[in-house]
């Protein structure tokens, strides 16, 4: 499949990030909008808390745009929990027409790419897209009960408790950024079976998508101020750089960033780094959109990565299939188009 | 319990004790008839190099023996017990023999001999106490 070129340059007009208590320690906490004091967020279960995160984030986004839910054509959302129920139930609360998506942690960019495409094609005028993840709910589903004293290896990643969402509309001058292109990833599998080593498993998926994006657009690393991967964390990020070098794509250290490495920088208990769909969403919708808006950077490529496993597949000794979706964003163009 | 004539004598050899354990040798003698038995058993335990600290209580129908096993020999505790038991059964076939290296049994037996020595118990009470200790010992799990 070819890279999608959004001729009309749809605009991201507002964004909002809601995060949990632990994320307050993030060096980028200043860029998140709402914080909850405890993991339950006044709800009875972690799953319900995750739904509340998404609702809070979406309402924040609407509020900033000065819009009501009725004015939005459609919401695209996804998460990691069984049958993406937190997203489904949040959609019920919000009452906005809804498309559920699943690309694991790459759901954030899948949603953004689709929102951009639907707006660009003229099917929609205003699209909401967001993702959520909750550390305890994810642990419960994929690993062990939260209070179980299992030892995590240093390759493990810490699921981010947060939700991030954006409102995408047709091109307007008053925007945070424009969606320029999107490359949909292929599922790649390098035969990693350890669910505590997902960063490594996702490395080829990320490298492949980046390579295809460059090949199909005729662009190179030099065209981008930043290339930001989703949640590869320490191991995966280093591996991607090696793979890209072999593919003759050379990225400099300050150009090639990873949300999973950044979001918990300096925090020991997270092992290799952050993960979860909200990891890339919080960093991109919170931090990097600000950089684009301010004009600190002109053009970035966000490559969200996802490990498409379930507890069932890895117990059946299936290796972990992975995917990465890339969306390029450019800073607001004053003159519009 | 059937009324019986009771003779009980305890001899204690106590060496190398932890802080909370009672110390000091105690000799209790009521009737002379079992004196030989007690001395013999106690001597045998003293001669066994794996063992230390012993309490021997002998009535004319019952012989209760408790001792401690040196820690590094505790692996062979069960076989030592077996050897001791067969020696005792052979030597005193007419007696019910109760043998234990259990710390709790040792303590109870020690407390009993203490009480017996100070004359707190009459023969019947003493026999009841011994029965209680034997019952405790026979509990398996």
């Amino acid at each position, binding site marked *: 499949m070819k890279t999608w070129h959004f001729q009309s340059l749809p605009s991201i007009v507002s964004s909002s990030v809601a995060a949990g208590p632990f994320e307050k320690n993030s060096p980028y906490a200043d860029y998140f909008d709402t914080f909850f004091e405890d993991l339950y967020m006044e709800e009875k279960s972690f799953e319900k808390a995750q739904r509340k995160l998404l609702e809070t984030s979406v309402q924040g986004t609407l509020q900033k745009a000065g819009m009501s839910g009725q004015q939005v054509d459609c919401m695209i959302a996804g998460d990691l929990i069984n049958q993406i129920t937190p997203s489904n139930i949040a959609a019920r609360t919000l009452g906005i027409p809804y498309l559920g998506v699943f690309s694991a942690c790459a759901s954030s960019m899948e949603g953004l790419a689709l929102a951009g495409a639907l707006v660009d094609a003229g099917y929609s005028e205003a699209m909401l897209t967001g993702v959520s993840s909750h550390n305890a709910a994810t642990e419960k589903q994929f690993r062990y009960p939260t209070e179980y004293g299992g030892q995590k290896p240093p390759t493990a990643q810490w699921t981010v408790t947060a939700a991030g969402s954006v409102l995408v509309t047709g091109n307007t001058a008053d925007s945070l950024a424009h969606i320029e292109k999107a490359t949909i990833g292929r599922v790649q599998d390098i035969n990693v079976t350890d669910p505590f080593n997902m960063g490594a498993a996702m490395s080829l998926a990320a490298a492949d998508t980046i390579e295809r994006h460059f090949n199909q657009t005729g662009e190179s690393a030099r065209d981008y101020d930043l290339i930001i991967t989703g949640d590869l964390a320490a191991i995966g990020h280093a591996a991607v750089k090696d793979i890209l070098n072999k593919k003759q794509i050379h990225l400099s250290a300050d150009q090639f960033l990873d949300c999973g490495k950044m979001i918990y920088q300096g925090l020991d208990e997270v092992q290799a780094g952050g993960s979860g769909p909200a990891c890339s969403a919080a960093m991109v919708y919170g931090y990097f959109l600000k950089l684009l808006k301010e004009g600190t950077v002109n053009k970035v490529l966000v490559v969200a990565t996802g490990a498409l496993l379930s507890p069932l597949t890895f117990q059946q000794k299936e290796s972990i299939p992975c995917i990465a979706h890339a969306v390029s964003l450019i800073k607001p163009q004053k003159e519009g188009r | 319990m059937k009324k019986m004539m009771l003779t009980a004598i305890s001899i204690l050899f106590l060496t190398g004790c*932890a802080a909370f354990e009672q110390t000091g040798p105690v000799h209790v003698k009521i009737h002379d008839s079992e004196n030989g038995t007690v001395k013999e058993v106690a001597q045998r335990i003293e001669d066994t190099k794996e063992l230390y600290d012993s309490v021997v209580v002998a009535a004319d129908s019952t012989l209760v023996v408790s001792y401690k096993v040196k820690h590094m020999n505790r692996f062979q505790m069960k076989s030592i017990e077996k050897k001791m038991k067969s020696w005792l059964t052979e030597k005193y076939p007419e007696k019910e023999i109760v043998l234990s290296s259990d710390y709790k049994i040792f303590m109870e037996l020690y407390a009993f001999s203490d009480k017996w020595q100070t004359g707190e118990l009459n023969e019947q009470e003493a026999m009841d106490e011994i029965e209680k200790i034997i019952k405790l010992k026979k509990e398996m799990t």
Partner: protein
Amino acid sequence: MLPMFFWAFIVGGLICVIGQLMMDVLKMTPAHTLSTLVVSGAILEAFGLYEPLIDFAGAGATVPITSFGNALLHGAMQEAEKHGVIGVMTGMFEVTSSGISAAIIFGFIGALIFKPKA
């Protein structure tokens, strides 16, 4: 009694090190590790080795999960001596029941009074 504390520490600690090596070197999950240790406890007792270890190390051998396998086998063998082959089945939980019932009871009570903190 004092040497007992020392050996409980050493033996208990060593059993845990074996578990750690199974997890780190053989990359076994906690569930695999613990199941293997339980089976090892039963096998050791089959050769009459676990009871002496308990005599020697006390809680150092009864507290690790290996003692669970030992206790199951112990109960089964005890009943088997009395009732033959049928006893193998009936005696199984005779010795171990306290650990399992305690876990069920305290697990349930825990569920009533606590919430996951994470």
